[in-house]
């Protein structure tokens, strides 16, 4: 009896973790996700801005999946900030994420006052998406255009690791 409860708990906790992984945090204000760009970190954090309707963004997403596998045993975290509009959260973003697994944490940023927060990510960012920001103890690295291959992404992550 105790054993089956234990197994049941195990299964529940397992599915709980899984559900957590799929969770999308919707943020109305940039300030709610600003912590992602804090420089005092001890690991590498890969943050990608994208949208379901941005062709070059979607095309490079598989590279991040590959990277999460390649760097699975190293201190590399992933976060995705979707710029899908508020009225696309249910209709586009959630179905997309159900079909396409992305590593790490999922955010959907609805802060439309772009000019107020683009420079907070980086003054070097023009505002074009996709963009990938790699935070590490060494600082902030920007990839301001889409990756042509997974190797390009691996290289940047490796550079931030060593």
């Amino acid at each position: 009896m105790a054993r089956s409860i234990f197994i049941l708990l195990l299964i529940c906790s397992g599915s709980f973790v899984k559900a957590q992984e799929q969770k999308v945090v919707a943020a109305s204000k940039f300030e709610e996700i600003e912590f992602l760009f804090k420089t005092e970190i001890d690991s590498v954090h890969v943050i990608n801005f994208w949208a379901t309707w941005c062709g070059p963004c979607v095309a490079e997403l598989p590279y991040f999946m590959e990277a999460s596998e390649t760097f699975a045993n190293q201190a590399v975290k992933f976060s995705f900030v979707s710029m899908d509009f508020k009225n696309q959260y249910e209709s586009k973003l959630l179905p997309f994420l159900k079909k396409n697994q992305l590593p790490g944490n999922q955010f959907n940023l609805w802060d439309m006052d772009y000019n107020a927060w683009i420079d907070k990510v980086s003054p070097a960012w023009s505002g074009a998406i996709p963009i990938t920001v790699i935070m590490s103890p060494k600082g902030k690295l920007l990839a301001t255009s889409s990756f042509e291959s997974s190797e390009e992404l691996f290289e940047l992550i490796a550079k931030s690791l060593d």
Partner: protein
Amino acid sequence: MKKNFVIFLFLGFIGLVFSSFVGEGLNVGDTAPDFKLKNIDGQMMSLSNIDDVNGYIVVFTCNTCPFSVKYEDRIIEANKKYAPMGYPVVAINPNDANRRPGDSFAEMKVRAKDKGFDFPYLHDATQEVAIAYGATHTPHVYLLDKDRKVQYIGAIDNNANDVADADEFYLSDAISALKAGEKPSPDFTKALGCTIKWKATN
């Protein structure tokens, strides 16, 4: 004499390399270069071809970028409102049609007809104008005065999704400032947009 000419050429070359690779482009206060691009009516067109203006609303945009599509009606409105005041819209599509077939010259004509564009929609086939201006994404607005001096660079307003939710109207405010003989403030804003689809360089 000949030596001077070589040096001049060399400096010019350095300048060209600098502007195309560093991508400096234009800043507010710079004089924007004129250009000669093919309009959707098949005619070559320059800013100097437009008579009796107080300035130009040059907007880099395209058919395919969702941000551009969101702003299409607002660009049409801007021309209806500001062209009679001497600030016509001049739209330029800088995307490489090989990478984005929906931005080909033929597709531009279709889009302009469907939406009833009553302003030039020019094809920057070599992307030289986008490079010279320093455009990075679509839509990307450059407001010039009649001397082609850059007075404002950036977004049209602060809500791409819905104009009804916007509460900053950067472009309108900038034009109002110019009309009042003042400097626009802000004169530079940033907005999300689609990366210009540059030609493969090698």
